[in-house]
């Protein structure tokens, strides 16, 4: 037990309140949940699957999927498992539940029953409660994870972990800044302490639950160092609460070499900072997200983006890849479209899994660059927090020393403006108040000037807009017409 760990007393106090926020929480027993988890076979445990993938140098594939009604959700997951060949399953939670609007979710369930199709963009796990969750987790053969975007995910965690899910996505920063508007960072970090502690309690009772911070953030031109800082900080916060199985991620940027460098540096950096915090007893794995920004509408083009993401994931040696579908630009995919994304991904992975990417000098330089940037921000965080990463990260967001592009939260300054350089690497155009030193900014600026020269225009805001649309309009760098 470290000094940051939420005490059992405080935990229990919060727990009592939390369980009362919706009727399905009322009778939950932690002991019964642990007992239930204990009889789940290891081949259905997410943490085991991730560890094995890492040991065997495999890249597992996982879709996103969730619909309003239990039976439909089960059919969907079974289809993705058998027809789609998914290694790992999700349960994506609807957006009302993510905002703790269980009443609205109830309306969504009702309307979905009437419409005979899902009017919710995910599975309202809290409304369906423990029994509903267990129906789902028992109906599938693969490890299954809760994927959401919930600033206050305490009740959801209580219900879904007792319900048999063995992995839980999110974190106090990554499920706030991109997903909320007004939730203070301290509030979401505190609420996620509870979630991590819950996982820690399961761990201490012999049940390993996998935790995965959500790295892609806004999915839009996020420079690797930005998402790496969030991943590392959330990793530390989780470790402090006794979490042992951590999957850190990275959302595809688009340039092969930057993406490789990002995934390689992520593991190095995490180990470095976890050690600095005194942690050495954990399982660290990685996840790569196929392109998280705007997709092309044309399905043939979407397949190309999917396949390219899969290729980079496996060349970079990610332990898992989150898969998009050819419907991405248009709407939540049908089960068929979702399975197509999985098949396309599987083919790419299998064609590339045996190919070893030799890391040359130029690649190493890009790895070094990302590491330098992350250390620069992390040092500012430690400085602002007087040595404590939690206080530091909150202060850093407030000061803009840490900043996520295009995020909706008012607690994020949003002054950083990212932009692609001439080869498509994501660089920083406007650093706002980001704690990046001059040497780093000179490097970025130099790279952006190369692009400006090639395009015969000044480095300008229009380039950012062009870059946002680029992939969906069929390019990487948003060149002028």
């Amino acid at each position, binding site marked *: 037990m470290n000094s940051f760990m939420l005490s059992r007393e405080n935990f229990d106090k919060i727990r009592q309140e939390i369980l009362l926020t919706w009727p399905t929480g009322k009778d939950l027993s932690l002991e019964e949940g642990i007992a239930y988890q204990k009889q789940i076979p290891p081949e259905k445990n997410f943490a085991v699957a991730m560890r094995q993938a890492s040991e065997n140098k495999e890249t597992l594939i996982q879709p996103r999927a969730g619909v309003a009604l239990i039976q439909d959700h089960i059919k969907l997951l079974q289809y993705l498992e058998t027809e789609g060949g998914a290694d790992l399953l999700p349960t994506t939670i*609807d*957006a*009302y539940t*993510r*905002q703790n*609007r269980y009443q*609205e979710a109830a*309306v*969504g369930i009702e*309307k979905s029953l009437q419409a005979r*199709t*899902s*009017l*919710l*963009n995910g599975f309202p796990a809290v409304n369906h409660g423990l029994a509903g969750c267990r129906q789902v987790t028992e109906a599938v053969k693969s490890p299954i994870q809760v994927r959401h*975007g919930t600033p206050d995910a305490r009740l959801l965690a209580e219900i879904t972990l007792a319900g048999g899910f063995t992995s839980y996505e999110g974190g106090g920063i990554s499920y706030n800044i*991109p*997903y*909320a*508007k007004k939730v203070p960072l301290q509030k979401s970090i505190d609420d996620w302490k509870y979630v991590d502690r819950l996982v820690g309690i399961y761990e201490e009772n012999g049940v390993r639950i996998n935790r995965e911070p959500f790295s892609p953030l*806004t999915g*839009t031109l996020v420079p690797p160092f930005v998402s790496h800082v969030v991943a590392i900080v959330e990793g530390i916060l989780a470790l402090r609460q006794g979490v042992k199985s951590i999957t850190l991620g990275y959302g595809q940027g688009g340039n092969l070499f930057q993406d490789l460098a990002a995934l390689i540096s992520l593991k190095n950096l995490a180990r470095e900072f976890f050690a600095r915090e005194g942690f050495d007893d954990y399982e660290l794995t990685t996840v790569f997200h196929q392109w998280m*920004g*705007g997709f092309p*509408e044309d399905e043939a083009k979407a397949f190309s983006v999917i396949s390219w993401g899969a290729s980079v994931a496996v060349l970079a040696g990610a332990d898992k890849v989150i898969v998009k579908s050819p*419907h991405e*630009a*248009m*709407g*939540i*995919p*049908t089960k068929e*479209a979702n399975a197509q994304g999985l098949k396309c991904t599987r083919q790419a992975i299998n064609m590339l899994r045996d190919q070893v990417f030799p890391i040359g000098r130029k690649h190493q330089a890009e790895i070094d660059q990302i590491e330098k940037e992350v250390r620069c921000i992390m040092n500012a965080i430690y400085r602002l927090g007087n040595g404590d990463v939690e206080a530091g990260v909150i202060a850093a967001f407030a000061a803009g020393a840490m900043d996520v592009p*295009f*995020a*909706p939260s008012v607690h994020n300054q949003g002054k950083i403006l990212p932009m692609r350089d001439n080869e498509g690497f994501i660089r920083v155009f406007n650093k706002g108040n980001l704690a990046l030193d001059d040497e780093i900014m000179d490097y970025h600026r130099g790279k952006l000037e190369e692009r400006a020269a090639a395009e015969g225009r000044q480095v300008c*805001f229009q380039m950012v*807009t062009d870059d*946002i649309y680029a992939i969906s309009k069929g390019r990487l760098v948003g060149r002028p017409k």
Partner: protein
Amino acid sequence: MINVVLGVIGFDCHSVGNKILEAFFVESGFKVTNLGVMVSQEEFIDAAIETDARVILVSSLYGHGEIDCAGLREKCIEKGLENILLYVGGNLVVGKTPPDEVERKFLKMGYDRVFGPDCELEKVVELLNGDLEAKKDCD
């Protein structure tokens, strides 16, 4: 200058398109009140009254548009905004759906124009200017 109110309705957090829409409408000469993401129907209406807006630009990306957008027209009328234009755009329903089907649904809800995620913003502004002109004649 014409006042427009802009925002993403419901519990939708998609902020990227919202930022682009703001930039685009400002550049096109409108006075934009951007309410950002997660905007309730009431907030839209209050802002429209406050700024004397001629149009409300509603975004919904996350799929709950059908639920979140229903009733806005009625509430506008209730609050005395009889003449206001309601534009709605984004990924309005759950799942890939033929655009004309989506359009029908939202026209029926009382929206004046309905746009998919692929809409060209230049065209939108053109249509808006036309609609504003037509409204003027009605006044």
